[in-house]
């Protein structure tokens, strides 16, 4: 598609180019305007400057919008490859005053513990149907569990997911999810589990959603956190629930720092867990020196990852690893694939045109879980 044909260019040549023309244009188009691999971001209002703010690696954090001559409409055309999903905000300057906010012309929002942002679906991106509520899918049950953890020195809260048709006489694999509350809230993980189990894509699985205390202390290679998982939570669950209770039926899942927590727990107990799901793991490392650029929170991470890279260890049979190509962490994640493989672990690595976001991690769940615990599709012949 040539630039001349873009909707914004047609508007530019409109005569007269006045407020009514802009009104008609906005009424006709969904914003951002997606035309092939071109996405036109828009903001309307009075300001001295305006930007689109996003965190795509390789692009400036703030990209200026241009004012459409004679109007109060600002625009920016970005090339976004097919299948991209980009979270962004608009920032404006009026005199000395700066303001950042979600795109008022776009209703699509992405949510996280840090707040919300606008989201642009480039051509080819579709929200998977299995993340949406399916009335046909029988719902699993969420139960609260509180465990006094000596390792963590606090009560550990766990949200326990029992699949629909849970039977004490059956035998279930276990998935332990770091940042469990966020996975439930921002990655729709209960709905996802209900749907994927209903569709036979994923085995009926018991899932322990753990809730961290101070995650910046507990997740980056913490011995206490690992002890909690392996010596407290696991025995409690395996003694009270009909779980497989073997390495092949135990999996740790985590994203970002949670990925480091999962890896480090398996590292400390290499015979315990059969699988790991590591999404956008914060596997920051240095090849020389100590300047990793991640700030003090990453110091223990870098120390751990450097040690792991120097002497890779088989800590699980299989690793599902994913990362968004627009993330800062894409290079560290790519760099870890061969490290994991060199230790004798089977790795399934996928990339998405997405960022460090809960919806990226949500969208990877089908691929990850159906690989780690494949559903019984193969056994059903109706």
């Amino acid at each position, binding site marked *: 598609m040539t630039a001349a044909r873009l909707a914004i260019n047609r508007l530019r040549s409109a005569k007269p180019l006045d407020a009514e023309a802009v009104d008609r244009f906005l009424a006709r188009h969904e914003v951002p305007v997606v035309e092939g691999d071109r996405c036109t971001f828009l903001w309307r209002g009075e300001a001295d400057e305006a930007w689109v703010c996003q965190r795509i690696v390789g692009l400036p954090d703030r990209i200026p919008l241009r004012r459409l001559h004679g109007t109060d409409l600002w625009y920016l055309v970005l090339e976004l490859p097919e299948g991209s999903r980009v979270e962004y905000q608009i920032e404006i300057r009026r005199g000395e005053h700066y303001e950042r906010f979600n795109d008022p012309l776009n209703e699509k929002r992405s949510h996280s513990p840090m707040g919300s942002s606008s989201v642009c679906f480039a051509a080819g991106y579709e929200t998977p149907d299995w993340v949406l509520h399916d009335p046909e899918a029988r719902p699993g049950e969420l139960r609260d569990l509180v465990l006094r953890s000596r390792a963590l020195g606090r009560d550990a809260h766990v949200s326990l997911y029992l699949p629909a048709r849970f039977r004490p006489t059956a035998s279930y694999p276990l998935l332990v999810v770091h940042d469990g509350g966020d996975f439930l809230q921002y990655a729709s993980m209960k709905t996802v589990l209900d749907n994927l189990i209903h569709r036979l*894509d*994923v085995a009926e699985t018991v899932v322990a959603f753990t809730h961290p205390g101070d995650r910046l202390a507990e997740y980056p290679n913490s011995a206490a956190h690992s002890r909690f998982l392996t010596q407290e939570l696991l025995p409690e669950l395996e003694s009270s629930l009909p779980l497989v209770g073997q390495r092949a039926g135990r999996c740790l899942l985590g994203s970002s720092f949670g990925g480091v927590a999962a890896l480090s727990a398996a590292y400390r107990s290499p015979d315990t867990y059969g699988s790991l799901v590591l999404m956008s793991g914060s596997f920051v490392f240095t090849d020389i020196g100590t300047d990793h650029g991640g700030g003090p929170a990453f110091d223990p991470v870098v120390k751990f990852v450097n040690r792991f890279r120097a002497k890779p260890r088989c800590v699980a049979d299989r690793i599902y690893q994913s990362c968004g190509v627009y993330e800062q962490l894409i290079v560290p994640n790519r760099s870890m694939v061969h490290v994991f493989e060199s230790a004798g672990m089977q790795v399934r690595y996928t990339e998405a045109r997405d960022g460090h976001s809960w919806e990226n991690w949500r969208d990877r769940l089908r*691929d990850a879980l159906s*690989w780690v615990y*494949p*559903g019984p599709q193969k056994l*059903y*012949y*109706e």
Partner: protein
Amino acid sequence: MTPSITLLGPQRRPTLDRVLSSLGVEGPVAVVNAGWQEREADDAEILALAGGERAGNLRLFGRWMDVLRADPEYAAAEREHRLVLDELQQLYLIRLDHALQAVSAVAARPDGHANTQAMALEDALAAVRLLDATHVARMQELHAAFYATWRPEERGSIAGHREEVRGLLAAAECLVVAGGHVGDLLRVLHLFHVSPHLPPRLVAWSAGAMALTPRVVLFHDRAAQGASLTEVFDAGLGVVPGVVVLPHARRRLLTDDHPRMSVLARRFAPASCLVLDDGVRVDLGAGGALPPDARLVGDDGRITEGAAA
């Protein structure tokens, strides 16, 4: 006496009533839909198709649940047995993956001497056949050891159900076995000792048809995690000899990938890979012989009628 057997394609558009009518079945019909698991009791439609008041559900899944509730010791043992079988299956899959990769690698070699390549390919396939055969044998060993240890015929909860099932089968003119979860179906067919008491006629489809063969083969090239290995799962009842049944073949297999399908057919030879797609009806002849119009996967990977395969 060997029952007369009719295998059907998936019953999304049911043909069961017409099939039973064409077979002249007028007496009691025993129905097994244990593959539907918890939905076993939703049987109004299948019973109506199977003859209405003449049809009765053997309720094998419900009986199995009864056993597990009534006999916790057996339930625990069976659960442990299942875990052992699962582990063996996983270890088999690891070995199978390598063996099939070897087949693919040999088949994909360009150039070279055609005869040499054909010999190497045949040897690679023979290794896969050996792997499949030893896997089934190991599974059978484990089953035999389990049954020898836990002697279900002497456990009250199981023996009572077996006796009831035997009585219902003895009175039936025909047994209808529906599809569903082939693992659970096999388990209950074995547990309640159905095989020795088969009535004179059998009609089965999908998982039900698979359960009648000597080897149950699982396949799904379009699963969520991508094309998976076609794997031997366990021994079936073996009343349909020399056949590997492939229900929903066109939906589940990459049937246009002829090299892949060729490996499938040659791997299970001399057994025939029988395609049971929608609308298919296969009336087996004496000794389980396939009719000439049965649709089979040929050595070249193409699906053709039996005479041409």
